[in-house]
């Protein structure tokens, strides 16, 4: 099956078997291995990518579903000359990364959250990030990293 979509800002086409997931297509066809498979059941969120700017579990989505859509992965976040996205920068500064396996999914979920609500309070951050598990950090540093980017925005009171 031929699938055409926008991947990290570029128009791409892939010829893939009908039965593969978005996760498999991204990792195997496009070698975007920042997208991680944790549980494979939509529980852990480490496979989170953005489809039309909304966070989804790529392990539960058929590759066919992104035909004609815009897909963003962690690889598409950094700007020119490897300049980090403010969220990536904040995760580094706040020590929100330990083993790193959950980090791409965490950052993509955080990105969708802040796109939708630039000034979330702590409770809204927790709710927005409820679908992403981290077994290292205890979440506090992750929440603080996201808060720092939210507070850095001009529109927050």
């Amino acid at each position, binding site marked *: *099956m031929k699938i055409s979509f926008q991947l990290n800002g570029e128009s791409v086409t892939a010829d893939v*078997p*009908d*039965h*593969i*997931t978005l996760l498999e297509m991204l990792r195997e066809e496009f070698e975007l291995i920042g997208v991680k498979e944790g549980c*494979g*059941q*939509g*529980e852990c*969120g480490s496979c*989170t990518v953005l*489809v039309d700017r*909304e*966070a*989804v*579990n790529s*392990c*539960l*989505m*058929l590759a*066919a*579903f992104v035909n004609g859509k815009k897909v963003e992965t962690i690889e598409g976040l950094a700007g020119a000359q490897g300049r980090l996205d403010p969220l990536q920068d904040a995760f580094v500064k706040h020590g929100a990364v330990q083993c790193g396996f959950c980090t791409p999914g965490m950052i993509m*979920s955080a990105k*969708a*959250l802040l796109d939708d609500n630039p000034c979330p309070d702590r409770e809204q951050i*927790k*709710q*927005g990030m*409820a*679908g*992403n598990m981290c077994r290292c950090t205890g979440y506090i540093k992750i929440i603080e990293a996201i808060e720092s980017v939210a507070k850095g925005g001009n529109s927050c009171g």
Partner: protein
Amino acid sequence: MNKFTYHEPKSMGDVIDLLDSYGTRAMVIAGGTDLVLKMNERKCEPEHIVSLRSIPGLNEIKYDNGELRIGAMVRHRQINRSKPIRENFSLLADAADNLGSVQIRNLATIGGNICNAAPCADTAGPLMALDAVLLVEGPNGERNISIRNFFLGPNETSLTGSEVLKEIIISDLPQGACSCYIKYTRRKAMDLPLMGLGVVLVPDPSGKVCHEARVSLTLCAPVPIRATATEEYLTGKTFSDEVWKEAGTLAVGESTPRTSFRTTAAYRKRIISSLLPRAANEALRRLN
């Protein structure tokens, strides 16, 4: 996942033709969060997958002339964000807000939630309390099914082989109605309910007497049910803690929960009696 052929027809007629010709070898996919999971675990191995993604109009919420129409492909995130649903059918928003994670709510559809017919389906109880009508289409055309006749058993519905759910139709509640759904879970997020309880209350003009009550129970029987004896008892009663307590006891009597790996039947019964007052008070609080 097993190998299958993916079909994405552009009209409902083509969907039904495909389902008709492949029979039990085909399955419909909506959001896929239940089906892909089952296929990943090899609990289900269809040879053909028929997607509803390209059928026009199925992902819309329409509200006019006192009627809410939710397309089968409407995702839970759209329900979260729908002003008419939050304002007029708040118990449905309660259920959609607490289903899975943001990522799941962005994928999972309301049509999939009820057609998969898991006994724990989050939107089923609220739709029961709202007396939803389901518009389905099959080889012989369209028909309406009352949600009360839709669930036949766990993962079993009254849809026939090549029938497809198109729309969920909900009539406006009577003037002054209020509602609330409580999904009782061990954790605050990412959990399935131990039980769910929905109420719709219509107070009389004084605001103190119950003119009409609807109570739905989830995971209190093999399918979501309405607690009709409880509803009858509440009608005409003046709201009070004692009335809620008695209603809770009646609702326990109408339920036949089972002991599962999640919890025991006895515990489920205790939750019912304490959730009914809580849901009723929260619904009435929303009136102000």
